[in-house]
Structure formats: C-alpha cells, structure tokens
C-alpha cells in the first residue's frame, strides 16, 4: 500500500548531497525543504510540521547527534521519524544514531530504490503514530495526552499543588424529568461544550464527567504557578456563559439552567488510575473532597461560586469576594473559611 506523499526535511551541509536527495525525493512525489546545518534544521522543525527528516551526521556546529538529542527531548518532535544519511565507512555512527532514536539509515550516494522503500516505510510509521496520537487526544485532554506521550504510560502517582473544581447543574434531575430525553442530552452537550471551553481556556483539565457534574484540575498535569487565579477566572466565565446560554434558551422557549461551582486548592495526589487497558488522570485527597463540599454548599448559601482560603490566597485581591463563614468538613476538627466569588 502506498502512503502517498510526505513533507520531508533534508539536512545536509553538503550542497551536492542536498541536490541529490532533493531530486530523488521530489521524483517520488514528496515535497522537500532543506537545512544546511543542525541549527537551521531545529529552527525549521520548530516552525512547521514535517512527516520525515533525512539527517546527515557530520555537520559543523550542531551535528546530527545533537539534532537527534534535541528532538528526543521535545514531545512535539519525538514522533518525527528520522533517517540518517551517512557514508558507507561510517556505520559505527549509524549504530549510535539508531540507539538515540533514529528510525533507519541510508548510505550516500543514495540508491533510489532503497530511498523509496525506506521513506515509504518511515512515512507509514509516522501515519500510524499520528493516528494513535489523535485517538489518545479524543479520549483525554491535550495536556493529559501530552503527559502520556512524554512520560510514557505509567500509573505512578505524585503529590502536586493544584486547584480542584467541581461543577454541576442545579436541580438537574427535575429538569431531566420535565423534558424529552433527546432534549436533555442536547442540553448536556451544550453545557459541557461551554464548560470545557472556559476550563480549557484557563489551562484546566476536565477529568471527570458524571451526569450533569464535572471535575476539573488546574495546575496539573501541566504546572501553572497561577492555578488558583486561573481556576477562579474559569469559574466566573462558566457562570457568565451559562447566563448567556440561558438568554438564548429563553428566546427559544427552552429550559434554563443554573450552575454551582466549588474550588479548593492545595496538595493533591495526582496520577493515572485504572489498568493498562483503561486509565484516567485523577486527583484525590482532602483538597478534592473540600472542593466537592464547597460545590454542594453553593445551594445552601445560594451563591454560584464558592472557594476556600487557600484559593483566595492566590487571587492577589484581583477578584471581588464575600466571606461566607466557615464550613466543617466531615472527619475534620478545624473548620475552613469559605468565600463566594462575585
């Protein structure tokens, strides 16, 4: 099966070699760009998407080894297949390159038949990897997908500082009973789209969706020092988006919704839970429990957003708050201060 044409970067400091390889690849229908040294190659790789790189080992300044090391360190470039192009008497360097992650090699001058075979095979592997990446992204958020691709698949957990957010639709059961099932699903889909836009826009990750409730994490797996502020900004935007959504719903004579959001910050235990076949990025711990309690408490004090003291400490007075007294958590002796966000 032919995998068709690819976009290929040829890196070689020797002009004769660039001409030769370029000609060979173009004759096979590929589009080719050239870099004269490793530095230029890394620059081009940073700017555009390539399906394959043909890389010379021996180059002044940034050589082929350094380019390989750099792309192995970059989660966006790690999947790029690399074919080393080398002289016949340099096969020892090829071994080192393969150990460093290169896919294959060709000796110069390159034989057109071998060139075609190795290029097609590498492009096919690239296509499969892209498909796998797309599949992972569909079932996990971008951050989690990248975390998975960077760290490999490990179920190990760690302590991280993060903000946990819980959100649900008030009186959802009553709403669901009052309308057609298809309308309920449509409503949930609209709701989730809006919430995920707001959360994703502030770098948060939605890691659980159950019925009308969702849980999101800010500050993990990708660290963000201002995760408290991000979580609160996201919550305010969520409430605002729901208000806009309600106006549209009202105009259409459809049911309107209200949400409650609880946010708590501090140390959480984060990691992938599940089995090797099916796993999800999860955070657990007191902070997470507190966020769930705060969300439930929004109904009691009739405020859309409640946060804890730790979250408040990261807002630098940028967001107007109102003290809502204290909340005693089950199993805890010390009550926590609660604030509502305007």
């Amino acid at each position, binding site marked *: 099966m032919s995998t068709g044409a690819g976009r290929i970067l040829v890196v070689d400091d020797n002009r*004769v070699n660039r001409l*030769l390889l370029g000609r060979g690849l173009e*004759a096979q229908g590929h589009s080719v760009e050239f870099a004269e040294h490793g530095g230029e190659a890394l620059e081009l790789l940073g700017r555009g998407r390539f399906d394959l790189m043909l890389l010379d080992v021996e180059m*002044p300044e940034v050589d082929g080894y350094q380019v390989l090391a750099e792309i192995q360190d970059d989660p966006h470039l790690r999947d790029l297949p690399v074919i080393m192009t080398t*002289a016949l008497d340099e096969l020892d360097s090829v071994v080192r390159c393969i150990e460093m992650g290169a896919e294959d090699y060709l000796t110069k*001058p390159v034989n*057109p038949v071998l060139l075609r075979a190795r290029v097609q095979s590498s492009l096919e592997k690239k296509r499969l990897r892209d498909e796998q990446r797309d599949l992972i992204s569909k079932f996990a958020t971008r951050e989690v997908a990248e975390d998975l691709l960077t760290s490999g698949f490990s179920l190990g957990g760690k302590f991280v500082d993060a903000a946990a957010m819980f959100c649900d639709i008030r009186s959802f059961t009553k709403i669901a009973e009052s309308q057609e099932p298809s309308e309920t699903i449509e409503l949930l889909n609209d709701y989730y789209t809006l919430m995920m836009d707001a959360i994703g826009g502030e770098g948060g990750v939605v890691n659980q969706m159950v019925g009308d409730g969702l849980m999101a994490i800010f500050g993990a797996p990708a660290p963000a020092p201002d995760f408290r502020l991000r979580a609160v900004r996201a919550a305010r935007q969520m409430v605002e988006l729901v208000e806009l959504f309600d106006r549209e719903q009202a105009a259409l004579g459809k049911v309107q919704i209200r949400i409650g959001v609880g946010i708590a910050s501090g140390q959480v235990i984060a990691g992938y839970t599940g089995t090797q076949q099916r796993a999800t990025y999860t955070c657990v711990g007191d902070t997470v429990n507190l966020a769930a309690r705060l969300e439930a408490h929004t109904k009691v004090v009739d405020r859309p957003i409640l946060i804890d003291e730790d979250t408040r400490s990261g807002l630098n007075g940028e967001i107007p708050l109102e003290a809502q007294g204290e909340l005693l958590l089950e199993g805890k002796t010390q009550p926590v201060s609660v604030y509502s966000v305007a």
Partner: protein
Amino acid sequence: MPAGEDTRLDPAAFDELRELGGDDFVADLVATFLADAPPLLAALRDSEVDEVRRAAHTLKSNGTTFGATRLSALCRELEEQAKAGDLAAAPTLADRIDEEYALVAAELRR
C-alpha cells in the same frame, strides 16, 4: 588499479545520476561540485584538525557521488588521519588530492 589509469570516473555512478535526474540535472550537480571544491581543497592545508577532517569528508562524499574512486579514497585517508589527530602526512596527501581533483575536474568538464 585495474580499471585503467586514464579514466578517473566510474561510468556506472554517472549512469545512476543521469537516471535519477537527466542530463540537465547532472550538469547542475557537476557545476555545484566544481564550484564548492576549491575552498574545500584549500581547507585541507594549514587548517585546524577539525576543519581538515570535515573538508576531506565532504570531498570524499562528493567523490563517491561522481564515481571518482581514487579521489574518494585519498580523501578518506586524510579524513581518517585527521580523525586520529595526526596531520603529519596531510601536506603530502593534500598534494595528491589536488592532482587527482585536477584530473577528475577535467574529465567532468568534458
């Protein structure tokens, strides 16, 4: 050298190049090689070890491309010596490479 002292280029290598890109392409390739060679040849003399090694490496590679087997072998010898950090025989080798290159270039220009 069994393949005749008077020819410096392996015709099979040339046929492959022609097959790849046709006569115009081969002419371009030759012109590029001839234009890039003089500074590389100059770099074989009175240069740092690393520069000698790299210039010899490039000349070796281009020699192989055009089937200039002897030029390639001489350049490889110099590259190996430079790799070992020994430039004692470099001037002599550079002389032989210059001579060989002159013959190759003359044949390529034909």
